[in-house]
């Protein structure tokens, strides 16, 4: 359910807005001054909101100051300013302070609701775009283990919210290890299969790749859980390492 913050000091208007927005299916929070609004948006009592309906003439900090302050603090929730002042100067100050839309009182209820819907929809679209810009997991060939996902074609490793771009060769090594998960793979085998080199080539280059991959996929690269060395042979990849018995 979408959450709306209404900042309005005229009690009648605030309650009328609350009633109507709740009828529209939104969850509504009402505060009557700028300071309380800022506490909810960027302060101690911070809560998530999908849209803010903000009056200009407020006791203490006015609406322009509130929107400027929240934008300054990196709070970019869509904000609709609502005010009796309709000089172009006022409208311009609203927008330059960081408001997304401006509606003058008295307003048409249907128009207000339509604008709120529009702003919420815009937010929804932006979110969808952001998802599209990210690799859609179902389209790219991927492999997940723990909280990590490898997107082979995109040369990306995602660990929780972080994205690590890998080089083509790093990815090839990782892909080879993953496709042979659980089985020890010798250095020579990897050199031959991944690099197309003869077995007797110097193997230190390969060890460097392993060190780098461990930095990405191991929580503690000093104590690897996934990319294990097998003495005398090479390496072994474990997607789901067994916890050592205590």
């Amino acid at each position: 359910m979408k959450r709306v913050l209404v900042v309005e000091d005229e009690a009648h208007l605030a309650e009328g807005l609350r009633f109507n927005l709740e009828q529209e299916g939104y969850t509504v929070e009402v505060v009557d001054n700028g300071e309380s609004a800022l506490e909810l948006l960027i302060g101690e009592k911070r809560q998530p909101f999908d849209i803010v309906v903000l009056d200009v003439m407020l006791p203490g900090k006015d609406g322009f100051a509130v929107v400027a302050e929240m934008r300054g603090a990196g709070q970019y929730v869509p904000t609709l300013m609502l005010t009796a002042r309709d000089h172009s100067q006022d409208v311009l100050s609203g927008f330059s302070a960081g408001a997304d839309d401006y509606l003058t009182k008295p307003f048409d209820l249907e128009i207000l609701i339509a604008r709120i819907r529009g702003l919420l929809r815009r937010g929804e679209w932006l979110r969808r775009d952001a998802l599209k810009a990210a690799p859609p997991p179902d389209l790219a060939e991927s492999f997940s283990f723990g909280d990590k996902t490898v997107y082979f074609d995109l040369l990306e490793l995602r660990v929780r919210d972080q994205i690590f771009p890998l080089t083509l060769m790093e990815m090839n090594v990782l892909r080879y290890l993953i496709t042979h998960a659980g089985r020890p793979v010798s250095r020579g085998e990897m050199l031959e299969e991944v690099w197309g080199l003869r077995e007797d080539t110097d193997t230190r280059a390969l060890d460097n790749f392993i060190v780098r991959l461990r930095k990405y996929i191991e929580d503690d690269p000093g104590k690897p859980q996934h990319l294990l060395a097998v003495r005398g042979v090479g390496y072994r990849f474990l997607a789901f390492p067994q916890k050592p018995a205590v």
Partner: protein
Amino acid sequence: MIGSGRKKSIAFFIALGAGMILVALLLYLGGVVLNWRDGIRLFFGIVLLAVIIAGVALNTIFLVREIRRNEQHDAFINAVTHELKTPIASIRLYAETLQTRAVDEAKRKEFYRIILQDSDRLLSTIEQILRTGRIGANTRPPNISPVNLPDIVSESVLRARVLHNIPNEAIRYQPLEKLQILGDLDEVRAAVSNLLDNAIKYSGSNARVVVETGMADGKYASVRVTDNGPGIPEPELKRIFKRFYRMSGPLATRVKGTGLGLFIVRSVARRHGGRAWAESAGPGRGSTFVLQFPLAK
């Protein structure tokens, strides 16, 4: 009326500017002509320099005053815009809500009550503005008739209790004696009501207002309205009666108004040969407003 005042001050500035240019020219020519006699030159120089300095000082003072008046006008327009549009916005919002939504019986009654309250608020703002126009323009002399002041005060107290939806003990009034004055019923009622509205508005949710009527100085009928509100700093006691004047600070943004109420109170008092003033022990210690009319002989 406002326009003519401005035109006058513009003419004054033009005259003052022209005068200063003339004085400067005189100073220059005098310097050339009187160059041969040092004594006269010194004398003229000092006199004319004094005139220029006085002129520039006057110019600055008037300019600043004009700018302040302009600012007050802007603030007034903003305040009036807000005071007119807010209740209309509310009335419209509730009317549209009732029209478009399914509203249960209890809510519907509440919405009707809110609509009525807001139309009262709108009407009282409009009346203030119209009254200011009438009083300021001095076109209509008061409709004089004998009036019993305590009757008007009792009536205004009842009205204020209903309007602000406050318990009886929030405004206490004991009419004691008959005080006959000669006045315009409508204007006197407006002045008394303005004082009561202010006392309640500024005192907040636990307003305790005491109203007294009595004789003063043997020739005045007096109304005293004492509140437990935020009080008034000494330098503001007189200014608050000016037209459009509103104290700056958080209080004035919390309590909405047009800056006309006390101007009306004082104008009504003066039109009746009476007087009005404010007393306060300072910020945080409440205030008392006194309104006096001459007793009918």
